[in-house]
């Protein structure tokens, strides 16, 4: 099994930051969300993942942060085979992966500040550092006025940007953004893309799943299309 997987690896002399090899995901009982998908992302790359609704974009991102487990196939991140990592090692790896979920997964009763601070607290960053980073991110996303508002009281578009700020807080090794501009107008979409570009310039590898053609048209980043679980 492993040999056939290895043979199918593209001929690179160094492993990519993300290696997805012949991954299939079947949700019980028989929903095939991903079929034999292989994808490699280099360190520092920005990749777009497109495709119609239900194609499997979210599923692919969930596999990368171990929120779901592949039915078949191999996933490696930064040289770690996710299948063989211990629970604790998975948590440590998750600390280096920022995820902006399609459904945000914010805590509505906590303030905007507390929500964005959470991943930094998990890594025991100092309060000073956290304050600095949170205000910086909010300024970049045009949300400075909302610092102490409960996250649940914000509009969808504002919540979306909070989710992105939380994913970006630790300047992660790998950033996964699921439909990050779905609720945004052109202006705020620009702010979000500027933030991604900045993170990318500073070395973060970024994978963006999106329907929004405007954010990938005219860029020279790689783009993959998922259709009914198959990658093109």
């Amino acid at each position: 099994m492993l040999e056939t997987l290895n043979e199918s690896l593209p001929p690179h002399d160094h492993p990519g930051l993300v290696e997805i090899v012949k991954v299939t995901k079947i949700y019980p009982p028989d929903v095939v969300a991903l079929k034999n998908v292989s994808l490699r992302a280099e360190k520092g790359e920005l990749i777009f993942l497109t495709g119609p609704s239900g194609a499997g974009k979210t599923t692919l991102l969930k596999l990368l942060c171990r929120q779901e487990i592949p039915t078949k196939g191999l996933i490696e991140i930064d040289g770690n085979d996710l299948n063989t990592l211990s629970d604790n090692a998975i948590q440590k790896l998750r600390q280096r992966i920022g995820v902006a979920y399609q459904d945000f997964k914010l805590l509505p009763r906590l303030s905007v500040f507390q929500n964005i601070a959470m991943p930094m607290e998990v890594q025991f960053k100092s309060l000073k550092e956290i304050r600095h980073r949170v205000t910086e991110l909010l300024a970049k996303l045009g949300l400075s006025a909302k610092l102490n508002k409960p996250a649940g009281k914000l509009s969808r578009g504002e919540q979306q940007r909070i989710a992105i700020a939380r994913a970006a807080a630790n300047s992660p090794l790998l950033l996964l953004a699921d439909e990050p501009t779905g609720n945004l107008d052109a202006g705020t979409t620009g702010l979000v893309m500027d933030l991604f570009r900045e993170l990318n310039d500073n070395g973060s590898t970024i994978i963006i799943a999106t329907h929004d053609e405007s954010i990938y048209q005219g860029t020279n980043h790689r783009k993959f299309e998922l259709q009914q679980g198959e990658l093109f």
Partner: protein
Amino acid sequence: MRFFLFIFTQTLRNICHSWGVQLMTLLTVTLSVLIFSFFYLIYTNMLQAGEKIGEELRLTVYLDAQLSPAGQEEFIKKVNSFGKVEKIIFITPEQAFQRLTKQLGSDSDVLADLSPAFLPYSAEIYPHKDLRNLSRIKEFSDYLTNLPGTQKVQYGQAWVERFGHFIKLLRFIVIISGTLLILTTMFMVSYTLRLTLYARQDELKVLRYLGATNSYIKGPVLIEGFALGLFGSGLGLAALFFLFQWIKHHFSSAGFLGLFELRFLPMSDSAIILLGSIMLCTLGSLLSIRRLLKK
């Protein structure tokens, strides 16, 4: 260092999140500790009283007739063959009469017309420490009753027996309240903490997604359990101390309690109660989170 600071602020945040339930749990722990240590305090004081009474315990053997020196030797030998005694004193009717006169004091004129002859010869036996427990004393008394030349043996049977039963009852109550203490603290703490954890389930889920390790999630909960144990039992012991002072102040001059001095729990016992409660509460908090972290 920063790790502990974070765990600590996280703990405070959790406590603020559900302070009502936490306060109830704290009071439950306090009350259990108070009830247990109250009975334990009575028990230790009673044991002490018992010891004091035991020191004065003696058996009086009334004899048919005066014993010759050889007879006395024989008697001493027989008594010693049952168990160790501290001393044996033979008392003649004259000596007993004198003692009685002394005890009666100014009322001694009631004895004026009487002669010492109405009093029997007797022997007073002061048992050794090893013999001074209730069942041994009873056996000893039966043994002495069956010695030739013995009329009757007296040692305040009824009183000693009742006291012994009382001590037994107290021990039983201490054990029961101790068990209740263990059960209530452990289950209350693990139950409330589990409730508060369920209330925070969304937060815990998000924390897992953000890469929080087990110890990051467990730490604050364990500290909560620890704090509940520390403050709960601390308050309980403090309440007991004030209760004790009050009782001492109001009752120490009254009859029975005047027999001996009331004493508070020794430092070591208080420390054990404190540490025990802390351990139980921490254990309870561990129980509450174990199941939650499994999935």
